[in-house]
């Protein structure tokens, strides 16, 4: 199977959907002439022209609203945020309008729109540029939230997101764009709302999504050497969450670690724990542990940034702790 980057997988997904349906267009900062701030839309302007690949002024609130308006009357916008940090300015359109339009209008106006862009920290971008927003977005009924961790999942999920008649927030990652993986040439879709068991093991479950999937897999590999076998549950979609997959895994392993990139307080991990303790109460041999970003703004200094981020050693330590190995 061809091996391509996460970046190219995303690009291929959007290109295929734009070729398939001329109601689909891409809009955002630097998506056209500059070929994408992170080059996801390389070559798009040349292929589709400036009506379908639209550079915007730096006005997140404004162009998110433009997407919402276009979606109300039947287009299918893909709105790129240069990063989700800047999307904070646009949340009124995402949360107060896109997420509520179908409901407020009594089912009349669908909102087939995708909001996408890199989420979470890259390297030394410091406090204002290093935040992970999935727990905020997933808090909101009316939104769907996906966080693919591999090129294969990125392409299949993004294509489904573009075909979805609801607003879908796609959380990508600057640190993921260059990662590689197998992606078939044939078209495929991955359903939104289905987790993927990326490793099978009986000793402990790691439940994760997005950028942390790679860390979870590394942890599983390392622990396997010690004879500890991990079930790696990649949620892939944060909302709606595949709770069955979580329960199935935890009822088998009786132990769980929830690994996420963002902050702890009211994070996605807290919601996963809430589900587990309710649905798997009698199966748990130990409290569920969480691994996440330190509860501070992201510092610039390299060493502190490293200390702030969830990583392989922290994930492994949590597994060992939940297994009472140390």
């Amino acid at each position, binding site marked *: 199977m061809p091996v391509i980057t996460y970046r190219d997988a995303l690009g291929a997904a959007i290109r295929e959907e734009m070729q398939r349906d001329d109601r689909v267009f891409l809009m955002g900062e630097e998506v056209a002439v500059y070929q994408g701030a992170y080059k996801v839309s390389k070559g798009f302007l040349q292929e589709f022209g400036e*009506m379908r690949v639209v550079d915007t002024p730096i006005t997140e609130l404004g162009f998110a*609203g433009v997407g919402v308006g*276009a979606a109300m009357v039947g287009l299918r916008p893909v709105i790129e945020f240069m990063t989700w940090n800047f999307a904070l300015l646009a949340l009124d359109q995402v949360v*107060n309008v896109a997420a509520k339009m179908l409901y407020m*209008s009594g089912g009349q106006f*669908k909102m087939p729109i995708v909001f996408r862009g890199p989420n979470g920290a890259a390297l030394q971008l410091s406090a204002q540029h290093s935040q992970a927003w999935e727990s905020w977005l997933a808090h909101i009924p009316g939104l769907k939230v996906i966080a693919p961790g591999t090129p294969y999942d990125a392409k299949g999920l993004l294509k489904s997101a573009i075909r979805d008649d609801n607003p879908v927030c796609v959380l990508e990652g600057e640190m993921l764009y260059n990662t590689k993986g197998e992606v078939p040439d044939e078209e495929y879709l991955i359903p939104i709302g289905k987790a993927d068991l990326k490793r099978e093991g009986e000793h402990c479950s790691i439940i994760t999504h997005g950028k942390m999937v790679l860390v979870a897999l590394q942890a599983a590999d390392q622990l396997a050497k010690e004879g500890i076998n991990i079930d790696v549950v990649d949620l892939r979609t944060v909302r709606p969450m595949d709770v069955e997959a979580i329960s199935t895994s935890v009822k088998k392993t009786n132990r769980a670690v929830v690994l996420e990139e963002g902050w702890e307080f009211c994070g996605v991990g807290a919601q996963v724990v809430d589900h587990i303790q309710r649905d798997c109460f009698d199966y748990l041999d130990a409290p569920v542990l969480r691994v996440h970003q330190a509860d501070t703004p992201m510092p610039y200094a390299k060493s502190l940034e490293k200390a702030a981020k969830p990583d392989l050693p922290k994930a492994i330590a949590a597994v060992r702790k939940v297994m009472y190995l140390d």
Partner: protein
Amino acid sequence: MAAKKKSDTQTDGAQNLELLHSMLLQRRFEERCAEAYALGKIGGFCHLYIGQEAVSTGTMSQLRPDDYVITTYRDHGPALARGMTPRSVMAELFGRQDGCARGKGGSMHMFDTNTNFLGGHGIVGGHVPIATGVGFAIKYRGGDQVIACFMGESVVNTGAFHEALNMAGLWKLPCVFIIENNRYGMGTSLERASAITDIYERGAAYNMPRNQCDGQDIFAVRQAVGEAVERARKEQIPTLLEVRTYRFMGHSMSDAVSGTYRPKSELEEQMKRDPITLLRNHMQEASQLTDEQLQQMDVEIKAVVQDAWDFADASPELPQEALYEDVYADTTT
């Protein structure tokens, strides 16, 4: 009333009767809304449009059925003027099954796909980028429709307004932005909220044709909107239009009509220029309207409003399971 302009010759007789009918319908409908609110049949925030009817009717009279309309929470008038049925609007206000939005939106969120009425939005300024997006979609599809976007004068201070107008001006989109300048944003007068008071001038920042007109004179509104609509339809050039009007009621049902922020005297002075009276007088002088006709029109309209009330009252409450419906659409694509 402004001496009739050439462009109004076509608005004589029959057409003026239609305009009058539309304005009177909004007025009578909302008088009953106030009553229903007092009776607890309508809840939540309820912002009446009374006093501004010439803006909605004058504008809609220049639009085609396939054009689009979007406005704020002060939306009963525009909804009726656009042709939404009094029954569906009243049932929505009563929060019933047959409401235009199944009783889920309420007073601030009227929506209707049949008339391309895109709401009914509650966040001040939030709907202006949406209007720009509709203009973008029209251009994207190569259509010749336009979108009329109503907003209160406070909106011109919001960031959303400026981001939206810049894109509409930059991309040349068929949008008509209509500021209903009724002088107050809740309790704050225009002078206390905006660094300039001829706010249509803000269009200059976006290289946008701009204009100001009397919002109580429906012919002045028709004239100004007509020009803007034609420019948008034929040349895809957006316009910023400031319409000077006045709100005869409180900001919402919970706000006193006058007192804290505007003196009774100002209100009384303004009410002398009731847009409905102005049109009526004009028509009577032009002998386009007899007292009998007016009488009869009023009786008919009151009957229509009563019918809407009865319909809404009889419309079923939503079943409990409806709470969980319309959160997500089943995707068919």
